[in-house]
C-alpha cells in the first residue's frame, strides 16, 4: 500500500478547485441571487430594492400564473404517459432482431438530434391553417371541418405544442428502455416463459419490474423537462393567443425581459425551482440508495 502523502490528500481539492469555482460563479451563485432578486422590485436598471413577499403575493393573484402552471401540468401529464408507454412499447418491439430494426430505431430517435427551434419551425409550418400539411391533408380527404387553427385556437394550441414535444421525446425514452433491456437477464425471461406465462404476463410481471430503475429515471426527467419547457412555446406562439399557451418559463421570460419586472420574473423562477426541486430530491434520494459504499 502506497504512502498517503500530503499531496495525495490534497489532490482531490486541487482537482476540484477550478471547476468548482467556475460552477459556483455561474450556477450556484446565480441560483442564490435569483432567490434574493425575487424579494426585490428590480427592473433591470435601477438598484434593486427589497420589497418582501410582494412579488409572491402578486404571483398568487395573477391569473396568468395559474394558466401557465396548468399548462405545465398538462405538459407533464402528457410527458409521463405517452412517451413512456410509447417508448417502452417500441423498445420491447425493437429489442429483437426484426428486419430493419436499425432503421426503425434511428427514425424514432432522430428528432432528438434536432434543436427545439427547428422542431418548432417545421411543425409551425405543418400547422399552418391555410397551406400546412395537416389541414391540406384533411381537406384532401374531405374532413374540412377538422381543419382548425391549431396554433390560434386557444383550446387546441397547448396540445398542439405538446404534441411536438412528445414527438421528440418518444425516441429518447425508447433509447433509455432499450439500454435498460440490455441489462435484463434473459434467463429470467426464459424462466417465466418456461413456467407458462404468456407474453403479456412476462412483460408485466418480469420485465417491467426489472426495468423500474429506468422508469424512475424516465419519469423524473420527463417531469423536469415539462417544467423547463420554453423553446417550443417561444418559437411557435410566444405564449399566445392571450396566454393560452403560456408556460411558466415563457411567462417568466416575458415578465422579466418584456415588462421589465425582473424581481417578479425571479419569483416565478423560484416557484419553478421549488416545483422541480421536489423531484430532484426524489431522484437524488434514489441515487443515494443505490450508491455502493466506496
Amino acid at each position, binding site marked *: 500500500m502506497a504512502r498517503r502523502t500530503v499531496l495525495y490528500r490534497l489532490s482531490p481539492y486541487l482537482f476540484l478547485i477550478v471547476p468548482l469555482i*467556475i460552477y459556483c460563479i455561474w450556477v450556484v451563485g446565480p441560483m442564490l441571487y435569483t432567490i434574493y432578486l425575487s424579494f426585490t422590485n428590480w427592473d433591470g436598471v435601477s438598484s434593486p430594492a427589497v420589497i418582501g413577499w410582494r412579488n409572491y403575493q402578486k404571483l398568487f393573484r395573477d391569473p396568468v400564473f395559474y394558466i401557465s402552471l396548468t399548462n405545465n401540468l398538462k405538459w407533464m401529464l402528457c410527458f409521463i404517459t405517452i412517451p413512456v408507454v410509447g417508448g417502452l412499447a417500441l423498445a420491447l418491439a425493437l429489442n429483437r432482431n426484426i428486419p430493419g430494426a436499425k432503421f426503425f430505431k434511428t427514425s424514432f430517435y432522430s428528432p432528438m438530434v434536432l434543436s427545439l427551434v*427547428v422542431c418548432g419551425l417545421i411543425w409551425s409550418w405543418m400547422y399552418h391553417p391555410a397551406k400546412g400539411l395537416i389541414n391540406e391533408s384533411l381537406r384532401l380527404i374531405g374532413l374540412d371541418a377538422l381543419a382548425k387553427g391549431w396554433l390560434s385556437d386557444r383550446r387546441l394550441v397547448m396540445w398542439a405544442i405538446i404534441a411536438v414535444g412528445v414527438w421528440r421525446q418518444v425516441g429518447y425514452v425508447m433509447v433509455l428502455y432499450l439500454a435498460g433491456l440490455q441489462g435484463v437477464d434473459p434467463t429470467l425471461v426464459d424462466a417465466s416463459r418456461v413456467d407458462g406465462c404468456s407474453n403479456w404476463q412476462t412483460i408485466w410481471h418480469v420485465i417491467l419490474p426489472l426495468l423500474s430503475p429506468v422508469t424512475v429515471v424516465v419519469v423524473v426527467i420527463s417531469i423536469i423537462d415539462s417544467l423547463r419547457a420554453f423553446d417550443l412555446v417561444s418559437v411557435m406562439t410566444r405564449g399566445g393567443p392571450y396566454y393560452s399557451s403560456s408556460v411558466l418559463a415563457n411567462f417568466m421570460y416575458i415578465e422579466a425581459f418584456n415588462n421589465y419586472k425582473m424581481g417578479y420574473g425571479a419569483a416565478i423562477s423560484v416557484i*419553478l425551482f421549488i416545483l422541480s426541486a421536489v423531484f430532484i430530491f426524489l431522484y437524488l434520494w434514489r441515487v443515494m440508495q443505490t450508491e455502493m459504499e466506496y
Partner: protein
Amino acid sequence: MSARQFFRSPWRTAGYILLVIVTLLWLVPFGQALLTSFRSYDDIMIRGFFSLPKTLSLNSYREAWERGGMRYYLPNSFIITIPSLILTLFFSSLSAYALARFRFPGNRAIFFLYVGGTMLPFQVLMLPVFRLTNALGLYDTYWGLIAFHTAFQLGFCTFLLRNYMRTVPGEILEAARMDGCNEFRIWWQIMMPLTLPALAALATLEFTWIFNDYLWAIILLRSDHLKPVTAGLATLQGQYVTDWTVIVAGALIATIPTVIVFIFLQRYFIEGLTLGATK
C-alpha cells in the same frame, strides 16, 4: 430468426405493418419540410401544398444562406460549441476523477451539488447570469456564452464521468501510485485513456445539446453577426415571416451539423444518452 420465419405469424405481420406505418408517420415532419424547401412560396400559396411543384430549386436555401444570415450563424454555432465542449469535458473529468477515486469530506455533498445542477430549470439562472455576464464585460461576446455553457454542463458531465470512473479497477491506479506517479499524471495518462469511450459518448451528446441551445443565445448575445443558428433561425423567422420555404430551408441547414455528428457517431450518441442513466 430469418425474415421468412418472422412473418409466418399473421399477428407478427400485422404488428410489423403497424410499426412501419407509425415509423413513416414519425418521419412525416422531415419529409414535408424537405418538400417545402425545394419549392417557391408563391407556388405553395397559390396552388396548395399537394400540388405538383411548378419548379424545384435550391432558391430557398440560397436565400436562407445569403440574406437570411445562415452563412454566419452556422460558423458561429461551431465557434461557441467546440470550445465549450472541450472546456467542459476537461473540467468535469478533473472533478469526476476527484469525486470518483478519493475519499474526502464533502465528496458526497459536492457530488450532489453537481447532480442537482443538471436538473435545474435554467430560467432560475437567467437574470443573474445576464447581470453577471454584463458585469464581467462578456455580454455580447462568444466567451460569455462559452463560459456559461462550460459551467452549466459541468453538472451533468461530472455526474456521468464520475460514475464511469468508479468502474475502473482500483488496482491499476494503485500500481501507478506505487511507481511514484503523481495524481495528475495518473489522471492524464491512465484514467483519461480508460474513460475515452465515455468521453466520446459525452462529447457527442454535449455537442448536440450546446449546438441546439436557444435560450442562452438570445439572452447573452445582442449582435446579429454573433448569433448561433438557433437564435439566427428565430431572427430568420421574424424576417421572412411569410416565406415559409425560406424559414424551413434555413431550419434544415441548421440541422446539418447535428445530423452529420449523429450519422457518424450514432453509437456514441446512444451511449451518451444511456451512460449512467441505468444502474
